[in-house]
């Protein structure tokens, strides 16, 4: 919506929108190396590089590498690319971008996922939560900062979640999630394993009937080993 002030025709409109922009994710700060590789690419697809706006992304670089943004920008321009902004967390890069008249975007990281994974606020556990009887389809039980003990089965379509360990004294047929706040040492233990899904500290795996252990009734323990789920009979 354009504002009309004092009878004057509006000169412009601001519009938000999502544009697809090519991002140049830099894996080195060596401007010579970058230029060499750009030249090779330009030769292969010259039309693609002509007057193409790019965002220079620095997230994948080591933190303390010195960056000479002006050289990189110049190398881009010589190959038809037009840098319009940078994306980084580094203050010095942000400043040189400002000096070169480039925009700045905050870094895109998986910081949300990481911050959950590293949250140790649940290290101090509360009293274990007990559920007597079967957890049924459509029901969800959550043990906040605690272990969860189910004295029964967890049926298909049911979810049991704990920030600590999950112990199931019956059959696990539904979903079990241990270490929901990121405790990588959390475990899921059940008397019989017919699970749909198991997750420990955000790392999950779905199971089909053929991936269940052969023996019908045996104690199963699921834990993380090197960021991989291990199902141990």
């Amino acid at each position: 919506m354009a504002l009309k002030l004092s009878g004057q025709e509006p000169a412009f409109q601001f519009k938000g929108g999502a544009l697809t922009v090519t991002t140049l994710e830099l894996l080195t700060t060596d401007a010579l190396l970058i230029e060499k590789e750009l030249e090779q690419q330009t030769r292969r697809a010259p039309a693609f590089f002509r007057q193409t706006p790019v965002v220079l992304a620095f997230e994948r670089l080591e933190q303390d590498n010195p960056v000479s943004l002006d050289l990189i920008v110049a190398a881009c321009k010589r190959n038809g690319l037009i840098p319009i902004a940078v994306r980084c967390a580094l203050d010095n890069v942000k400043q040189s971008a400002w000096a070169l008249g480039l925009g700045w975007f905050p870094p895109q990281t998986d910081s949300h996922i990481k911050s959950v994974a590293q949250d140790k606020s649940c290290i101090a556990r509360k009293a274990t939560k007990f559920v007597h009887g079967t957890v049924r389809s459509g029901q969800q039980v959550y043990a906040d900062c605690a272990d969860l003990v189910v004295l029964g089965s967890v049926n298909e379509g049911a979810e049991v979640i704990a920030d600590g360990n999950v112990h199931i004294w019956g059959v696990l047929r539904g979903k079990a999630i241990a270490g929901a706040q990121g405790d990588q040492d959390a475990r899921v233990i059940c008397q019989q394993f017919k699970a749909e899904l198991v997750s420990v500290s955000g790392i999950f795996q779905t199971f089909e009937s053929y991936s269940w252990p052969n023996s019908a009734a045996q104690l199963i323990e699921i834990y993380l080993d090197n960021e991989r789920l291990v199902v141990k009979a």
Partner: protein
Amino acid sequence: MAKVVVVTSGKGGVGKTTSCASIGTALALQGFRTVLIDFDVGLRNLDLVMGCERRVVYDLINVISGEAKLSQALIKDKRVDGLFMLPASQTRDKDALTQDGVEKVIEELKADFDYVICDSPAGIERGAMLAMYFADEAIVVSNPEVSSVRDSDRVIGLLDSKTRMAENGQSVPARLLVTRYDPERVELSEMMSVKDVAEILAIPVLGVIPESESVLKASNQGVPVVHDQQADAGIAYLDAVARFLGEDRPMRFITPERKGFLSRMFGGRR
């Protein structure tokens, strides 16, 4: 004191209404004054299965909204003394079913009957929730088939959380009625066994009703199958009701019949 029993399942078409009609009839045959309430507003069926569809004048919704007295809406069974039914409305909106209204009707019926059997609609919407809300006991009907078992599991969960008894910190005692059971297909591993179903649902088994042609015939004729004492299904319902009343009876019809040559050649299912 009268008992309110809900017959429920979650999934449709598993035999709630058929079971309701037969259980109610069997209870009345035992001398208990019994009333069946159809909660399936808009998809009224119990009257057909009971064979009294031509005598429906007023229904549950009429009673709740004060358009008719309870005594006007109750339909007396022609075959068994002490058996009545309260039909659902076929035309009205199911929002007319209110908790207060249902409570009033059930309380009034409790004063006059030994058993109030609520025939729940399929699903877990308003009608089904109200059918189970005032229950003192539940009969969960399930077919030996995964989707039916899962839906029954969901409904047992609701019985434990969304009923008046649950709100008072108790759980509604639920028992399992497995219907459309075919022991031969169980033996071929084409169908879940009653043991598997009972293990998943973790509630006591009230009875197993064998798959039988007589059930369909009975429904179409409007005579509850429990009247057909030649039929396996009819006998199985009588057994189930005997167990419901506390009798200890062995399960029948859960192993395949060893058929002779002639019946294998010519015999159908009774």
